[in-house]
């Protein structure tokens, strides 16, 4: 018997909150990116869960696209981390505070 969709939602909520916690606390830029990845994947779980729920493949195909996008996002993210490092000699996110009024 198929697992009821609520549990998938709970799972994705859990992963989402972990990712969220990661973003809020981690100071290292790379860890930051990882947490973002986690949150993205939490969303993918939902997609697949509901795709199964509705019997329509759109969810699954779309989650593929989100993964591709996540990849692009990470590529750019790491590029930025590189430049961050080059300018601030340190990848600590809380140090680079010059981009403000």
């Amino acid at each position, binding site marked *: 018997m198929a697992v009821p969709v609520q549990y998938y939602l709970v799972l994705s*909520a859990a992963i989402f909150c972990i990712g*969220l916690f990661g973003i809020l606390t981690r100071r290292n830029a790379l860890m930051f990116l990882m947490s973002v990845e986690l949150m993205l994947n939490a969303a993918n779980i939902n997609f697949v869960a509901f795709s199964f729920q509705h019997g*329509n*493949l*759109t969810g699954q195909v779309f989650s593929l696209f989100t993964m591709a996008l996540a990849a*692009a996002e990470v590529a750019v993210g790491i590029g930025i981390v590189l430049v961050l490092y*080059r300018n601030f*000699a340190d990848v600590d996110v809380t140090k680079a505070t010059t981009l403000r009024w």
Partner: protein
Amino acid sequence: MTTRPRLNTGRQQVIGILAIGLFAVLSAVFLTSSFGEAAGFPGGGSITAAIGYAMFDLDAGAFPSEGFLVSFMVIAVALDAALDVAVMLGQREDEEGVAADGRGERGDR
């Protein structure tokens, strides 16, 4: 060397509780809501083939799906752009005096 993870108290604890709180709220919502019977994918059709057809908007697959041809093209362009951006960001100006250890010029602080 790595540091042994410690349960970090203080600000992070608050955020931790917040995150757990959010999880509690979300799961409370999800659990108390009823979604009805899952339709699933009956029959023996191959899901991955249907995904492949949906990807190119051919709707010959066993299961219903929307067409993603346009988004396929768009994501291709996006990925290519991301690649170029990454390369551009990664590039160091050639004439820049680079310290031995690979750090940038400003890295010698």
